[in-house]
């Protein structure tokens, strides 16, 4: 494993060059990656909102936003500013504490999950042993926030929406975890870095999508359901529930829900690309190409190029997935609640279990191809 670029060490050394003690330099370093990731996630959301508006317009043969900035790219910013300046309304009979805490509980775990998303060999905030399991665990906190906001709104539509959202995310968490478990079994580790490393070396042919064709479909369906994207957006089905648990929310609290749902979409796409599409890998194994050309892997310009390519590839793959999600939203009708639960419990769960067993059998039979 090559060490690659070590941003942390060079940052610390340059600060110590100014005469700072090492402890203080470390203190300056600690918040930097997290702040960078929060900014990155927020900018990612702005891009997704713009894409959603433009692609939905194209699907319906409209033009979409076009006055705010070139091609309307500033429209999400305008939306955000509008939401910031709106009045913060708390309904009269609502429970003010839970009403405020609900959106926060929905948004925080999603942002925390960005800890484990890798953009390169060393471009990750923490490479912890439990990696992908942390994402699953954190995503299970969100239903509590949804229940809380649904209950605190003192509105029957909100309560029903909150209950539906919690039921939905609990039911789809199980096939999601089983699909992830099959991947984890193949890569012998929960760490996201190891999962990508196990797929690298053969370019596009080594990606998990070829070894887990069923698993990736299950994962995508379950991830869409976890994000409450349209084929599964029952918690906020307009015709039935006004807007579900968001009905009573306005201003910044509504913006938190909005932000949370889009950050969750981006996060799911990023995790999908890490698990199934080889993360930061280029479709052609670039290390081998560099070897043939006679460039040493420790050359500095090559490392910078690889890091830049890695970030670009991760972002490109996830935006491709987001594009598919948006297209699905504007072309597929909504399912009913009984169909949703039937699909989750009676179809996806058995198929995911069978997929897990077959993966285990294949791993024992062909340890070469399935990461023995």
């Amino acid at each position: 494993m090559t060490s690659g670029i070590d941003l942390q060490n060079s940052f610390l050394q340059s600060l110590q060059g100014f005469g700072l003690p090492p402890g203080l330099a470390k203190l300056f370093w600690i918040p930097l990656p997290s702040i960078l990731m929060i900014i990155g996630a927020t900018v990612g959301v702005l891009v997704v909102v713009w894409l959603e508006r433009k692609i939905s317009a194209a699907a319906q043969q409209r033009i979409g936003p076009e006055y705010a900035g070139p091609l309307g790219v500033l429209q999400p910013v305008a939306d955000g500013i509008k939401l910031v300046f709106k009045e913060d309304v708390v309904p009269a009979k609502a429970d003010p504490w839970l009403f405020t805490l609900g959106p926060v509980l929905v948004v925080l775990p999603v942002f925390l999950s960005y800890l484990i998303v890798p953009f390169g060999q060393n471009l990750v905030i923490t490479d912890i042993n439990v990696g992908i399991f942390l994402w699953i665990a954190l995503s299970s906190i969100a239903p509590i926030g949804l229940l809380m906001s649904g209950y605190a709104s003192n509105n029957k539509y909100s309560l029903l929406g909150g209950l539906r959202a919690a039921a939905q995310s609990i039911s789809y968490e199980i096939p999601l975890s089983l699909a992830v478990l099959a991947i984890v079994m193949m890569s012998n580790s929960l760490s996201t870095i190891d999962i990508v490393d196990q797929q690298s070396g053969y370019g596009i042919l080594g990606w998990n999508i070829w070894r887990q064709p069923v698993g990736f479909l299950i994962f995508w369906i379950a991830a869409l359901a976890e994000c409450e994207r349209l084929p599964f957006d029952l918690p906020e089905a307009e015709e039935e529930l006004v807007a579900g648990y968001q009905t009573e929310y306005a201003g910044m609290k509504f913006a938190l829900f909005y932000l949370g749902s889009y950050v969750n979409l981006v996060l799911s796409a990023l995790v999908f690309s890490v698990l199934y599409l080889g993360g930061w890998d280029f479709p052609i194994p670039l290390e081998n190409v560099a070897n043939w050309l006679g460039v040493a892997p420790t050359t500095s310009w090559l490392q910078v190029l690889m890091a830049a390519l890695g970030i670009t590839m991760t972002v490109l793959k996830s935006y491709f997935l987001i594009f598919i999600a948006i297209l699905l939203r504007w072309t597929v009708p909504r399912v009913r609640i009984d169909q949703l639960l039937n699909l989750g419990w009676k179809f996806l769960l058995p198929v995911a279990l069978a997929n897990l067993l077959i993966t285990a059998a294949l791993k024992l039979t062909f340890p070469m191809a399935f990461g023995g």
Partner: protein
Amino acid sequence: MNLAEGVQYISFLILAFLVIGAALGVVLLSNIVYSAFLLGGVFLSISGIYILLNADFVAAAQVLVYVGAVSVLILFAIMLVNKREDFSKIPGRWLRNVSTALVCTGIFALLSTMVLITPWQINETGPFVENTLVTIGKHFFSDYLLPFELASVLLLMAMVGAIILARRDLIPELSEENKTATALTLPERPRELTSASK
């Protein structure tokens, strides 16, 4: 005390305060919904303490199982029942409160003596655990195999029981004479499901 130790100490104080405060809230608040939410807070803070102890997998499992499943289940039960009832004034309520306080103090005293007399010396020269997950797995399939398998049997029993309770058509028809005794029976009778999916 260097930076890392200081951060650890302060985090422990904050987490301990959160656990105790939230647990007191669970017991003392009269609104059951608040108690349920605070129970989730207790579980979350405990998982923070696990993280301080370097038990990363246990912490994540704690969040997944206790916060994501147990708390949500309790909340579901409360919200689906959805019957707000204030405590009615019972004569002699203070007697119950006093007896509860006595029992709780007794348990607290027992646990405190247990904490005080147990030697908490940890062998710090033991090998540094690189991957807690692998270590836990090895223990599960060697010296803790029996408890591990028994736990799965217990879960299976709970699952079968839940399915039996949910499927009312498996309950045999009641005979005519004890149909009036509804104290221990479930209030609903089996009914034809309106199958909307046809």
